[in-house]
């Protein structure tokens, strides 16, 4: 009880952070800018945050972070607009919204779908911030228990989760994460003052800048993709009437909304998991517990509520590992980490102990942000949907010009621009092949954290068991083992399923020649030979003379 009273006093103190004209301007710019960015398919929050990142370095940390958080938190609201109206998700995490949102549009219920998406997103966002506000005292108490070895294990868990979350692409995701770890090691090793992979080039001595890589992999690669592609003709539906009905409809599904928001909070808190898993779990839950599961994928309001509530609950929760432990759970929070570093603010247990006002101010900013976004969308949706008409290639040109500001303003270095362009090409190839990009960024950030923390942790460890002799370290180690075991089990089940599928004849041709050919292949295979020899052994005539 004392903790909560103390916390409300802190909320009052944090108000002074927000009652400044620059923070208010940042909130407005972040929320409206984020919605616009989200509404344009092909841009997304990662591109916008990567471009704006160097510009925020000259701002006060609370102002810079408010802009970036604003974009992160509000882009998903905007992303639901093209997902519902034209079946193209504005941001990647709005993909599931198209399942039920677009069918609603096709049957003339576009306004209802948008209104439901806004109200669900608002509920998810506010639920998540309220959870954070009430969890903050607990976090403040738990965070100091994290020493070097616990932070190392949490970062390791984050990397393992981000790799294993890429189902059927785990191996290449692992390779990309290791590539990120390798990138983080380039430059001068702080403990031995020796050079690593600098190839005697002076510009590599200070290492590869994370922002250069981020701008290349997210902004430039997206510009290349758009420039390389074709413009699409878009037909928009005219929207008439009020957008308030969604709130009334949401109130009829409190169970789906609250469970989905809880999944969002939970998955956001775990590094490396994020929106996709939260959406998947809440959508599956909503479908399994619905009275009309057959409607899912054909314009179900519950499906729309589940996906939009879950994805909007994630951004606030994703700030927990970042603020409490200094561990980013995904690419966007990894970018935000660099804002902290530039201002010499070290996120982690100390931040909760020494600067709780700052942390609470960020939470409150997120809360106000959700209110601002919904207010903006309720009055401006009809005007906003016109941004969907911007031609893709023209958008690519604009992103190319904007990317220049991001890379060049960092250090005014031509070399950085060449490096960013190289990463842009890599990102372009990865996106064309649908291969994962995020593990590179997380490998780079978490790899650096793991190196420092493992070195300092090992100084106090004599036997391997000492590493996990503290309760939190032991729990984290157990979770890592559990994740690995579950992943191994899933790989085995996938393998078995694939093997059965390859042997199955249920979908094979029924032609006589095809049947003979299959039989022939089976007879000459290794397994066929074993089966025949076994049958031969069993059917051999008995040697008994009785």
């Amino acid at each position, binding site marked *: 009880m004392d903790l909560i009273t103390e916390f409300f006093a802190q909320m009052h103190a944090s108000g002074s952070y927000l009652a400044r004209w620059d923070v208010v301007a940042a909130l407005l710019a972040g929320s409206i800018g984020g919605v616009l960015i989200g509404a344009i398919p092909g841009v997304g929050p990662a591109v916008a945050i990567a471009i704006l990142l160097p510009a925020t370095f000259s701002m006060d940390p609370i102002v810079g972070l408010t802009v970036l958080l604003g974009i992160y938190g509000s882009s998903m609201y905007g992303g639901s607009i093209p997902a519902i109206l034209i079946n193209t998700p504005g941001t990647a995490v709005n993909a599931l919204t198209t399942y039920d949102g677009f069918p609603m549009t096709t049957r003339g219920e576009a306004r209802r779908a948008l209104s439901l998406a806004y109200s669900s997103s608002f509920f998810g966002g506010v639920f998540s911030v309220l959870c954070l506000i009430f969890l903050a005292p607990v976090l403040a108490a738990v965070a100091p228990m994290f020493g070097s070895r616990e932070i190392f294990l949490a970062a390791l868990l984050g990397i393992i989760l981000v790799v294993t979350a890429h189902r059927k692409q785990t191996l*290449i995701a692992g390779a990309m994460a290791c590539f990120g770890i390798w990138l983080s090691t380039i430059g001068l090793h702080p*403990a031995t003052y020796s*050079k690593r992979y600098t190839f005697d080039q002076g510009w590599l001595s200070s290492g590869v800048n994370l922002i250069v890589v981020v701008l290349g992999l997210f902004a430039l690669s997206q510009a290349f993709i758009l420039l390389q592609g074709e413009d699409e003709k878009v037909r928009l539906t005219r929207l008439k009437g009020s957008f308030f009905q969604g709130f009334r409809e949401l109130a009829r599904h409190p169970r789906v909304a609250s469970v989905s928001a809880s999944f969002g909070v939970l998955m956001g808190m775990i590094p490396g998991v994020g929106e996709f898993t939260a959406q998947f779990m809440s959508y599956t839950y909503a479908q399994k517990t619905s009275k009309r599961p057959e409607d899912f994928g054909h314009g179900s309001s519950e499906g729309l509520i589940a996906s939009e509530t879950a994805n909007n609950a994630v951004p606030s929760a994703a700030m927990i590992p970042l603020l409490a432990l200094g561990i980013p759970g995904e690419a966007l929070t990894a970018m935000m980490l660099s804002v902290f570093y530039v201002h010499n603010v070290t996120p982690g247990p100390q931040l909760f102990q020494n600067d709780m006002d700052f942390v609470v101010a960020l939470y409150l900013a997120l809360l106000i942000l959700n209110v601002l976004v919904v207010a903006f969308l309720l009055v401006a949706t009809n005007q906003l949907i016109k941004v969907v008409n911007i031609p893709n290639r023209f958008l690519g040109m*604009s992103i190319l010009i904007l990317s220049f500001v991001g890379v060049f303003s960092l250090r005014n270095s031509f070399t950085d621009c*060449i490096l960013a362009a190289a990463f842009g090409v890599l990102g372009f190839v990865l996106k064309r092949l*649908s291969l994962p990009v995020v593990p590179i960024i997380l490998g780079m950030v978490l790899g650096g954290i793991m190196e420092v923390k*493992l070195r300092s942790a090992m100084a106090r460890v004599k036997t391997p068991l000492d590493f996990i002799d503290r309760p939190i370290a032991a729990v984290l180690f157990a979770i890592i083992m559990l994740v690995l075991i579950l992943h191994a089990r899933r790989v085995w089940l996938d393998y078995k399923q694939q093997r059965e599928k390859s042997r199955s004849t249920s979908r094979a041709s029924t032609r006589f020649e095809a049947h003979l050919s299959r039989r022939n292949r089976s007879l000459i295979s290794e397994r066929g030979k074993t089966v025949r020899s076994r049958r031969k052994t069993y059917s051999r005539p008995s040697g008994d003379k009785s």
Partner: protein
Amino acid sequence: MSDLSDTHHIPKRGQILFAVFFLIASVLLASLLWDQTVWKKGKDLFSQARFWPAVGVFGMLGFTALHLWHLPRRRFDRVDWQEGRIWLTVLEWVLWFLAYVWLVPLIGYMPVTLVFAPLLTLRLGYRSRKMIWLSVVIGAAIVLFFKAFLQVKIPGAALYEYLPGGIRTFFILYL
């Protein structure tokens, strides 16, 4: 952890080309490990400068080799080379970008942007006056927002040095 990646379509074209290229890069980096990192005697394994680069390059090598082994098609096909050619075409946009980067410190952020944006718009195939003027307006707006309003660090151009006193300061600070 389950996610929605099952619903994503993963194209087969070009996968082997990328995997082979990444594997070769990993082998090269791994072979350079002993040359590009040092091992200091008396220090424990985890404090060695070589430890984390080794984790990175051998991880890349192992995972990429396994990825290559698990590819649904392990033979090169005509579509792979077609895909490779598409990757090469992107170099044109890289050159546009680098030319822009090279010209800004010489001629100036605003003048180069006002020429670059409509030129690239023309190259993309837009011929209407509306799109050309729109590109000029967008270019100018980007420069004014970042350089004049947000004051990001983009240095004044070499050409600005030839401008008379008062105008030169204005150009260096805001354009």
